[in-house]
């Protein structure tokens, strides 16, 4: 009989508990106190309540840095997981504030609560090393996100996209569960460290390879890596913009972190080698294949897109390819990966924000709807410039440094084994500039359509977008701010 210390659990899971309590409060307040309040005010109050909750959780983590390990890996809190959770919460705050001017629903209580609950799921996902908790947390986050994707009350595509998201999520959850069961069966444990100890390496049992692949399929779905990305363009295009932004940013950050953890902690000795002529099965060749496919598919498909959100979706697939290189970079790659995923999160969130503003104003988010944005909204145009150039990897923005550090880590760790993949990645990032400039061309060069009524844009989303752009610039100029703490042993 193992004694349980409930206080211990509460102490370690305090940030999650705070957010969960916040979600319940939001629901309760919405039902009891705000029934009669006018929608705009109600929305504002609920969003601020949600943001304050996330802020409180961050503050808690900063003030009481409790580290520890609850019940052999059920909950493992380290400085790095705290930072990743902080990133998830910061992205949640921005997503919430981004919704301040949106009108896709009237059920703001449910919306905010679900967003917070999915953040809870992502936080548990980040800080657990137990297969069971990882699975449940993943499902918690996913279920909330499915619902969030369907929140658009008068757009039929929204429900369709959510359904596709749901179906693919469930199929990949099925695959992942199958893989987890094999992993459990082969090692006799559900704790990642015990699994690593039981499995050893470096030679890969075929059944273990199946387990590895199916688990990677499940997580590959979450990170939208090709060929498991098919849902992403539809969801990014049709879900309410803030939901899509959250799916593209926070969910991706947490999923990448957990994929890296499952592979590097749980299958520590099974890297294998992905060099032509010197092939050793393992997760490096697996990820290399996914990365190459994502890079090619994402970048090439983005070239022909006419819808900006769909374009961002394909570019997100391509970026999943870059980030996979970070996992292959091993220990040195992890900080690079987290840095990249975080800055990418801010960038893509901001880009979705701009797209959502354009959509509210012009009525669509096709490329042509961005025409002349620089003359209507110079600040938003400038922010979009920052986001696009950062995604394309132009210094001194965060996207450049993130890529550089990822590539360097992957090359160094693999002692040039992955050179071919790095070459592909750099080449594809050169190609990507083409479609990012396509967006900028619309914004800066093409004259705006005449007869567009001037309307003030809500200040809350505007502030969020400018904040995101600032973050991208500052973290690009001074990457050490974030990297130093991420790489701290």
């Amino acid at each position, binding site marked *: 009989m193992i004694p349980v210390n409930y206080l211990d659990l509460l102490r370690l899971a305090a940030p999650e508990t705070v957010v969960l309590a916040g979600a319940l409060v939001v629901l309760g307040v919405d039902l009891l106190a705000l029934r009669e309040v006018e929608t705009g005010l109600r929305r504002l109050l609920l969003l601020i309540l949600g943001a304050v909750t996330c802020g409180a959780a961050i503050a808690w983590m900063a003030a009481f840095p409790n580290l520890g390990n609850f019940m052999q890996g059920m909950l493992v809190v380290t400085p790095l997981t705290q930072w990743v959770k902080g990133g998830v919460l910061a992205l949640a705050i921005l997503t919430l504030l981004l919704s301040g001017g949106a009108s896709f629903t009237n059920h703001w209580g449910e919306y905010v609560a679900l967003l917070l609950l999915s953040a809870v799921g992502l936080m548990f996902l980040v800080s657990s090393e137990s297969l069971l908790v990882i699975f449940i947390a993943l499902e918690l986050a996913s279920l909330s996100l499915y619902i969030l994707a369907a929140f658009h009350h008068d757009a039929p595509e929204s429900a369709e996209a959510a359904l596709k998201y749901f179906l693919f999520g469930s199929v990949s959850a099925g695959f992942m569960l199958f893989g987890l069961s094999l992993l459990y069966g082969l090692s006799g444990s559900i704790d990642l460290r015990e699994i690593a100890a039981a499995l050893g390496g470096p030679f890969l049992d075929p059944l273990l390879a199946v387990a590895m692949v199916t688990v990677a399929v499940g997580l590959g779905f979450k990170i939208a890596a090709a060929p498991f990305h098919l849902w992403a363009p539809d969801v990014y295009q049709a879900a309410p913009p803030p939901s899509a932004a959250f799916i593209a940013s926070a969910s991706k950050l947490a999923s990448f972190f957990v994929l890296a953890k499952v592979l590097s902690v749980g299958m520590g000795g099974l890297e294998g080698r992905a060099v032509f002529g010197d092939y050793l099965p393992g997760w490096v060749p697996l990820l290399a294949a996914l990365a190459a496919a994502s890079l090619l598919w994402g970048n090439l498909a983005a070239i022909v897109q006419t819808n900006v959100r769909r374009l961002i979706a394909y570019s997100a697939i391509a970026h999943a390819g870059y980030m996979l290189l970070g996992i292959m970079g091993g220990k040195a790659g992890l900080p690079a990966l987290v840095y990249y995923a975080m800055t990418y999160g801010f960038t893509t969130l901001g880009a979705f924000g701009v797209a959502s503003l354009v959509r509210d104003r012009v009525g669509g988010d096709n490329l042509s709807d961005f025409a002349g944005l620089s003359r209507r909204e110079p600040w938003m145009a400038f922010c979009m410039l920052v986001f696009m150039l950062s995604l394309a990897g132009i210094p001194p923005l965060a996207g450049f440094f993130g890529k550089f550090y990822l590539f360097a880590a992957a090359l160094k760790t693999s002692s040039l084994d992955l050179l071919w993949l790095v070459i592909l990645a750099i080449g594809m990032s050169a190609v990507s500039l083409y479609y990012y*400039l396509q967006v900028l061309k619309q914004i800066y060069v093409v004259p705006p359509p005449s007869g567009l009524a001037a309307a003030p844009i809500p200040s809350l989303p505007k502030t969020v977008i400018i904040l995101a752009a600032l973050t991208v610039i500052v973290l690009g100029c001074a990457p050490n701010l974030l990297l130093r703490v991420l790489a701290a042993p």
Partner: protein
Amino acid sequence: MKLEILPWLILFLPLVAAGWITLFTLRNQKLSVGLSIGAVVTGFVLSVLFVAVNPLTPAPQELSLNWLSIGEFQVQFGLRLDPLSLLMMLVVTGVAGVIHIYSWGYMRGDRGISRYFACLSLFTFSMLGIVLANNFLQLFIFWELVGVSSYLLIGFWYEKPAAADAGKKAFITNRLGDFGFILGILTVWAALGSLNFGVLAEKLGANREALGGAATLAGLLIFCGAVGKSAQFPLHVWLPDAMEGPTPVSALIHAATMVAAGVYMLCRVFFLLNAGALEIIAWIGGFTALISALMAIQQNDIKRILAYSTLSQLGYMVMAVGLHGPTPAMFHLTTHAFFKALLFLGAGSVIIACHHEQDIWKMGGLGRKMPVTFWTFLAGTLALAGVWPLSGFFSKDAILAEAFERHHYALFALGVMVALLTTFYMFRLVFVVFFRPARAEPAGHAVESPQVMLWPLRILATLSIVGGVISLDHYYRLQFEPAAVGAALSWTAQLTHPFAHAPVPAAFGLAAALAGFACAWLLYRRADVDPLPARLGPVARAMRDRFYFDELYQATVIRAHDFIATIADWADRWLIAGLVVRGTHGTTELIGRALRLVQTGNLQTYAFLFALGVAFVLWWVLG
């Protein structure tokens, strides 16, 4: 090292100006202009002060801050101060300052003048960043920033679709070169574990073979960056299009400084390049020099002629680097910065006077109406043509001498040929633009430009004339061959030094200039339409040797020109524009069709592809 704060100030003043203008003074044009000019002129004064206080010595100095330190990955943000960077800093701030002042006159009345000066300041900052960088990563960051500011400035008149497209083309083409560059940087880092130039030089100095088998590859990858930025074949296509930007921008960015950054970078990392890489570099440079000189002959747009001429001279410099001669390369880079900036500014003056007419066959007779412009332009032309005792002669001679001394006679002959062609097309330009009566209405009413535009011309003309005898090569030699350097020669000794030191190249150089001038004189002194395309030439005033030159031209030049033009056009259309810039109709069509087959929106198709993906990945991992 005294006054260590100065280099930092010089670097960051333009950035402060750019930021301040963007944030606060976009509406106040006068203040914006003043801030921008003030920043760069102050930078120049401080540079002079700094060099005066700290005499140039071969020992490099570094000022650095820790920028990044993550495990074994250490990068500094630092300034490397040695003769190379200090001289280049003087050149950049000096030329930029002159061009800033000129722009004030040239851009007067443009609505976006504040934006223009903000971009110009941003450019100056980035260029200084390249010059002063002490490590590869920092160099690359500023390298890209220079690309961004060039993109913004080429597309400055974004209402013109051609300008916007040219900006995009320049940006993307440069990105292709940078693809190789960053890969080269990563290779060097993976092999040697550092990005700092000083550390790398030490490591390679201690062990020549430290890079192992990757040496040639790394060298060529890094050279890719220079191919893009310095517009060498086959990535040369963006530079002529970049002439869509305002003329002072062409002078500063696409003639004097930014495009020279590639050459500068090659000299900066000269220690990394091994003989194999250098050989290829030399040939690419020589080839670029020749084809672009040939192309320049048949251009009618005054700025495009100068653009091709720039390409050709850049090829010259790259060839010099490839011939193990960073000293002559940097020497020529410096003098070229003077006279090519002068020529562009002179062209700008002409263009303004002719109400934005750029076709040389619609000009004429401007020599009388614009005397200052004419005489300074002539000085620039003579310098570019390599006429003794102007600056171009000395630097060009240094390159030819390098080729001659290394017994690289093929490239030597190529260099002489290019020198001949250079004189030819430049005097063609001079004759057509400044002599004969005006051929079109605007040129008839042309008047001299305002003083704010003329003083920069005078300053640059002075530099172009004396640039060869102010010991520039001596100081560069301090950097590259500190062992072989003697005392600086007096300016009179420098005047005759080439003839004493290496008479054969000097004689060939002068002869080439003379021959080129003679051809131009015969063909264009009295021409009102270009006689070359007509092929027969004006029979009425036929003279035997005229025919002789004409036929020679037909037999060799035109055919070679046609051939090369076909190749270059093919490269432009298919390699660069086709596959990358425009994505061609075919490519996008293909992708679109493939995508339509896959992303049908149909769940079943998605599910099937998902399963197929799983099966494939399983197969791949199980091997």
